[in-house]
C-alpha cells in the first residue's frame, strides 16, 4: 500500500515540475464534467476576443506606439487590467473563494528561471515585429486578417522547436 502511495506522489511531483514552468493549472480538477461544460470557456474566450479587438490592443499600430512611447493607451489597458486582476486575486485569496463548482482555487505561482529573461527578450522582439502576442493572433484571424494564419503557424513551429531544443537551453 505504501509503495503505491509513494509512486503516485512521485508522479504528481513530476507533473508539477512540468506544469510549474507553464501557464497550465498546476492542480487537476478531481471533478468530471460533461464536454459541454467547456462552453463556459468558449463564451469567456469570445468576450476576450471582442475586448482585444475593440481595445485595439491587437493592432500593430498600437504596439508600435507603445514601444515608441507615443501613446498611453496600451499602458493604460495593461496597467488597469493588472490592477483589477490583482484586486480580484487578493479578494479570492483573502476570502478563500471557491469555484462555481465548489473547488478550492489554487494560486501557486511560477518559479523564476533564466528562461523568463532569454525567452522574454525573444518574445519581445517577436511582439514588436508582428504587433501581436498569442491572444491577438487568434483574434486577428477571426477579424479577417487571413495572412496572420501564417504568423500563427510560425508561432506553433517556434513552440515546437523550443520543445525540441529545450534541454540544451539555459534555464
Amino acid at each position: 500500500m505504501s509503495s503505491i502511495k509513494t509512486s503516485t506522489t512521485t508522479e504528481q511531483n513530476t507533473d508539477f515540475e512540468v506544469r510549474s514552468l507553464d501557464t497550465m493549472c498546476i492542480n487537476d480538477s478531481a471533478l468530471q464534467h460533461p464536454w459541454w461544460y467547456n462552453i463556459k470557456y468558449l463564451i469567456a474566450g469570445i468576450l476576450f476576443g471582442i475586448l482585444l479587438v475593440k481595445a485595439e490592443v491587437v493592432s500593430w499600430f498600437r504596439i508600435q506606439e507603445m514601444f515608441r512611447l507615443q501613446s498611453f493607451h496600451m499602458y493604460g489597458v495593461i496597467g488597469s487590467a493588472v490592477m483589477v486582476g490583482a484586486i480580484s486575486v487578493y479578494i479570492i485569496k483573502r476570502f478563500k473563494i471557491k469555484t462555481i463548482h465548489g473547488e478550492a482555487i489554487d494560486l501557486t505561482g511560477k518559479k523564476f528561471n533564466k528562461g523568463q529573461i532569454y525567452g522574454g527578450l525573444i518574445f519581445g522582439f517577436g511582439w514588436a515585429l508582428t504587433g501581436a502576442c498569442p491572444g491577438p493572433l487568434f483574434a486577428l484571424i477571426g477579424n479577417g486578417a487571413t495572412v496572420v494564419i501564417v504568423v500563427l503557424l510560425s508561432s506553433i513551429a517556434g513552440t515546437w522547436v523550443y520543445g525540441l531544443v529545450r534541454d540544451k537551453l539555459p534555464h
Partner: protein
Amino acid sequence: MQFQQWISQPWPWYISGPLIGLMVPVLLLLGNKHFGISSSLRHICAACLPAKIPFFQYNWKKEIWNLVFVTGVFLGGFIAATWLNNAQPVAINPALAKELSGYGITNYSNLTPVDIFNWANLFTIKGFIIMVMGGFMVGFGTRYAGGCTSGHAIMGLSNLQLSSLIATICFMAGGFVMANYILPFILTL
C-alpha cells in the same frame, strides 16, 4: 442602432483594461484556470505533432479548456469585425504616421497594416522577417519564458509573482530594442 454605433467605436483603455483584468477572476471562478494564451500553442503541438519530444508528452486533453478558450478568442475577433465594426481608420500618433509613411505604410483601414501583412508580401524579405520570423519568435519566446502577455503580464503580475515581473520587463525591453532600433531598418528592406 444607436447602441450598436456607440459600442462599435474603439473602447477607451479605462473601459477595456479593467474588463480584460476581469478575465483573471472569471477563469479562476469558472474552473480554477489560470489566464494564459500561449500554452494553447503547446497543446496544439502536443495534439498534432508530439514527435516523441518529452515536452509534448502529456495529456493535452486535460487542458482542452485552453483550446476552447482560444477558439472563442477567434470567434470574438470575427464577431467584432462583423457586428461591432465602425469602419474608421485606426487613429495613431501623427509622429508615427509620418515615420511609417516614409516606409510606404499609409493604409490604416485595418488593425494590421495591409501594406505589410498581405499574402504577396510573404515572399519578400521584409514580409518574411516580420510575419514568419516574427511569429516564430513569438512562439519560441513565450514558451521559453513560460507565458505571454496574458499569462505573465496580466495573470502573473495580478498574482504578484516576481518571475512574471522579470518576464514582463524583458518583453518590454525586447520590444523597445526591436521597435526603435531594428524594425526601422527591416522596414526599409
